């Protein structure tokens, strides 16, 4: 069997000026071709104005087992949210 093309993760920026968002992945021989293929697959209905492609092997991710130590500490820090503070009605919108 021939050598398999590497996997690229595809990120698209939508019409409304938001950040690039992960939409899926595809195989391609190189990054340039990955962009061409991503255009054909992921922007057929006006979904985007910009494409990023990243080789999947280049992504470093958190491990599922680390979910607790990494994300739980923020659960107890409710003072980081605006609703933690009671502001009197007469102050108006703040």
């Amino acid at each position, binding site marked *: *069997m021939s050598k398999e*093309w590497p996997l690229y993760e595809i990120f698209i920026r939508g019409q409304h000026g938001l950040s690039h968002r992960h939409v*899926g*992945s*595809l195989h391609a*021989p190189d990054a340039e071709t990955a962009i061409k293929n991503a255009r054909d697959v992921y922007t*057929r*209905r006006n979904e985007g104005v910009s494409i990023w492609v990243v080789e999947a092997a280049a992504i470093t991710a958190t491990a599922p087992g680390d979910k607790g130590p990494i994300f739980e500490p923020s659960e107890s820090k409710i003072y980081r949210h605006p609703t933690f503070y009671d502001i009197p009605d007469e102050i108006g919108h703040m």
Partner: protein
Amino acid sequence: MYAQMVKSTGTGVKSLDEMEPEERAFQEKVDADIRIEARDWMPEGYRKTLIRQIGQHAHSEIVGQLPEGNWITRAPTLERKMILLAKVQDEAGHGLYLYSAAETLGVTRDEMTEMLLSGKMKYSSIFNYPTLTWADIGAVGWLVDGAAIMNQVPLQRTSYGPYSRAMIRICKEESFHQRQGYDIMMKMAKGSEAQKRMAQDALNRFWYPSLMMFGPSDANSVHSEQSMAWKIKINSNDELRRKFVDQTVPQAEYLGLTVPDDTLAWNEEKGGYDFAEPDWDEFFDVLKGAGPANHDRLEARKTAWDDGAWVRDGLTAHAEKKRTAKVAAE
């Protein structure tokens, strides 16, 4: 529904008490509708069954391009041709989304292709029926994509995250497919006598194969229980088939076409139609490879894979050459 008779490797459904802690934690997540992601712990049976199911679904999208591709060069107008091209292109995309989802489970895309070509993996029985006239393209969109939507909508809530996300993308695009098919049927059914006959003939030939898409009756559906506990199957085969018939019969009536089933009748009591089961012997024969187009479909896939090998290899070599040149220049 593009996955039929997917063998589940679980050995009967275990209760939570019978499970080891890892599996219990997994099942509790599934029960609580928390998505399972690629690197989370999962039972080996879940992984294997999903590879089979998603792989079969992906192959169906790709092989499904063949009966429709047959009519691209012969579409009756330029507009119909562009629409059909867009639809067939969508199917390629759907195949890709699903292959990508399956790959997260530790199988490569090339391995899946090889398994399709060697007959180890299947695709939906429906694509082993030929598209003989232009009206068949209408019937395929209306009935085949209609049946697929019936199954894919609930699968958006399936327990496996990558599969669920692929289904969400696919469902967004699938509605266009069914509507363009019905649009063709409307044109034909309201056209000349000859066109009407073609539309009726297409319905006659695609009705029962469409009903088969949901898989065997619940009584003969041996692998359902475990798949349902894992939430990789949401509704039973018969349940979805009934829903499909209830939805489709009025659409046929609107077209002035007759569903090829003498026993078809509205049943007030159950609030649905009574209808005839498809010929299950035919279904199993088609699955085994004896359908009218099995041979042609697999040959077409083999030819595409073999004849495309030099392109895949050439592009790999070109990419490597560029990479080496870039390193040398630095």
